[in-house]
């Protein structure tokens, strides 16, 4: 029954959109269009009622979310390989294992909502609208990179995604600033300020909790608790590992960050809470990172291989979601397999370009330091390395 679609799938990705709609229309004939799932209970802090533990999704939504998680996983696997091949240099932090947090949140974010995170952002960048190529070529420092190779792994941006930040904790106050703007421009937007369990101990997180509550800003502080900040486990870094309570006077929710749908419901609740003028929330998403902290960390000196294996086998966000949606009759296993093939093809194609493409020109070294350069030349350059201040093709930053 998929033969017509098969043709489309095997043709190039320009036809991708129509493939999906074709597949979907076929599924709808044979499969349920909607299903409801039960998630683990949430833990609440200073809240009388919390998110719904029931989550209803359509088959279209299921397919979309499945594709996104697979895409992120694939991009990260490709990034890991490119690093091992020494094509990606420097720092490279993978998100594998944590996909459900980003995908669940993004699935209910509205166009006016925004996010800001730390340096583990390849997945977020993709979800916020950058292609697999945009991410991978940024990692290899090539032209098609979403920052044209100037940022690298830790610094990626997209519309309403205020980026990748290398200084741990520094992004959290920015999130409150974005939320303040949401509030006074009355655009109804909520800003998600994401940080890790390690980052949660930075002083500026507490400074901004206070500011956000004082002014009741529409910001959701999302602590992605993956159990470790580099080699230090949460118990060893944090006097209270209950990150959802650490806003004290700010209400909080604990959510199973390995369950896309639980995250989705928590986020939906959060958006509702913030937009009704109640002010900020803290959301702790309990998750796990499969890889080491960065590529130079094998990730096994401070935790056991068995621990990683166990999470992979019993709590993997993709496997559990896949089982759920298949068992509920929302999608067929065949269709998911086809999606896997598609995703792989797209990532493989992106890898090819990200490997072979040129870097941007050397003149870019000095571009974009200022918008209004008061001096023509960059100081300290020499006659044989001569740079002028410049702006990249007069582009306006995407956030403005």
């Amino acid at each position, binding site marked *: 029954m998929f033969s017509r679609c098969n043709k489309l799938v095997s043709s190039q990705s320009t036809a991708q959109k129509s493939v999906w709609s074709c597949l979907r229309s076929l599924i709808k004939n044979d499969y349920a269009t909607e299903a409801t799932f039960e998630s683990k209970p949430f833990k609440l802090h200073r809240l009388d009622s919390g998110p719904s533990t029931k989550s209803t999704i359509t088959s279209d939504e299921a397919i979309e979310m499945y594709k996104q998680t697979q895409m992120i996983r694939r991009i990260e696997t490709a990034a890991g390989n490119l690093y091992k091949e020494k094509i990606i240099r420097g720092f490279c932090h993978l998100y594998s294992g944590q996909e459900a947090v980003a995908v669940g949140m993004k699935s209910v974010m509205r166009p006016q909502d925004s996010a800001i995170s730390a340096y583990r952002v390849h997945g977020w960048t993709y979800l916020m609208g950058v292609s697999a190529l945009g991410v991978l070529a940024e990692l290899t420092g090539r032209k098609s990179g979403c920052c044209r190779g100037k940022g690298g792994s830790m610094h990626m941006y997209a519309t309403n995604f205020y980026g990748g930040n290398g*200084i741990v904790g520094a992004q959290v106050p920015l999130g409150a600033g974005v939320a303040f703007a949401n509030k006074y421009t009355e655009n109804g937007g909520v800003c998600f300020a994401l940080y890790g369990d390690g980052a949660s*101990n930075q002083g500026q997180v507490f400074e901004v909790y206070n500011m956000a509550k004082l002014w009741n800003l529409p910001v959701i502080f999302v602590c992605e608790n993956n159990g470790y900040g580099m080699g230090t486990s949460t118990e*060893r870094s944090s006097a209270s590992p209950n990150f959802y309570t650490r806003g004290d006077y700010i209400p909080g929710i604990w959510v199973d960050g390995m369950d896309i749908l639980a995250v989705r419901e928590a986020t939906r609740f959060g958006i509702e809470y913030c937009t009704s003028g109640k002010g900020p929330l803290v959301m702790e998403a309990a998750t796990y990172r499969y890889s080491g902290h960065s590529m130079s960390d094998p990730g096994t000196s*401070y935790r056991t291989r068995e621990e990683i294996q166990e999470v992979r086998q019993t709590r993997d966000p993709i496997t559990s979601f896949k089982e759920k949606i298949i068992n509920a009759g929302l999608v067929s296993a065949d269709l998911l397999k086809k999606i896997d093939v598609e995703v792989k093809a797209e990532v493989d194609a992106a890898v090819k370009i990200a490997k072979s493409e040129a870097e941007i020109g050397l003149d870019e070294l000095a571009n974009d330091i200022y918008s209004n350069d008061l001096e023509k030349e960059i100081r300290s350059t*020499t006659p044989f390395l001569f*740079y002028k201040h410049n702006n990249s093709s007069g582009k306006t930053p995407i956030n403005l």
Partner: protein
Amino acid sequence: MKSLTSLFREASKPKKYFTSNNCQRVFSSSNTENGTKTTSMNMFQAIGSALDQTLKSNPNSVVFGEDVAFGGVFRCSMGLQEKYGRQRVFNTPLCEQGIAGFGIGLAVTGTTAIAEIQFADYMFPAFDQIMNEAAKYRYRSGNEFSCGKLTIRAPCGAVGHGALYHSQSPEAYFSHTPGLKVVIPSSPTKAKGLLLSCIKDDDPCIFLEPKVLYRSITEEVLEEPYELPLGKADIIRKGDSITLIGWGTQVHVLIETADLARQQLGINCEVIDLVSILPWDSETVCNSVKKTGRVIIAHEAPLTSGFGAEMAATIQEECFLYLEAPVQRVTGFDTPFPHVFEPFYLPNKWRCLHAIKDAMKY
């Protein structure tokens, strides 16, 4: 102290200077002529040795920072927690401002506090504690209190692919702060002796370790503890044509440049490792410039308000009538530290050589 410096120059026979793929990690003991025992060490091992000996000889000393209990990102404190216990070698949470302030508090009680900030780029969240609190404690209390027992170590400088936040050289920011001492070693031997001096010194010290050197140089380093003088530059190579001044990794670039200059221009460069940024050894520097009449200062940090600017001002004041050419600076560009363009940004030997040519024909 002078004789001590030269003793260690003899004791340390550099096997190889900075080349990026030279990662020797040999531990072998040998005896020098004068009977002192040396071990082949790279820079992280030499630093580890200084920390080890401090913890051993001074029961009132502690080492802490992010992940230092496991050795730290660059392995400097490897094995120390096993040896000295969790009370004395411990991980802190991820909070640089807290780490610095906590260290000041410890030091002000008389504890020898050795803090690690994981990368020099992350000293900025701690900047207030360092420059407002640590640096001014003694002064503002009329010498009733001081936190001189504080030493803050941090890896600095370019590493080949560190991009914006794992590559910076922040020494100039700290040099603008009376009350601090700022030191940058350029070799395992220097690292050990200078770190021990910083730890002993009664003022808060900032010890910046060029991270590319951790594994790239191996030397015979004295096993026993020893100290090298703070505030003293080291003339690495004698010459009479031009003075080349750098610190940290740049010293090795300047040595290579001096070789090139000899081959290509037939001149002898005097190469000075500045070693201490605050206070800096203007005497050694100015004496050299008076002798050669020409000087180039090279550093990785950007030009504007880089530490070279301070030196240039002093040199022109002290050596005005001796100068045959303007003081030149060869530095990183006035741009953020670039990601893919690092090789072009750095003041490499070709750029330094170019400056030498300019100075010679001025």
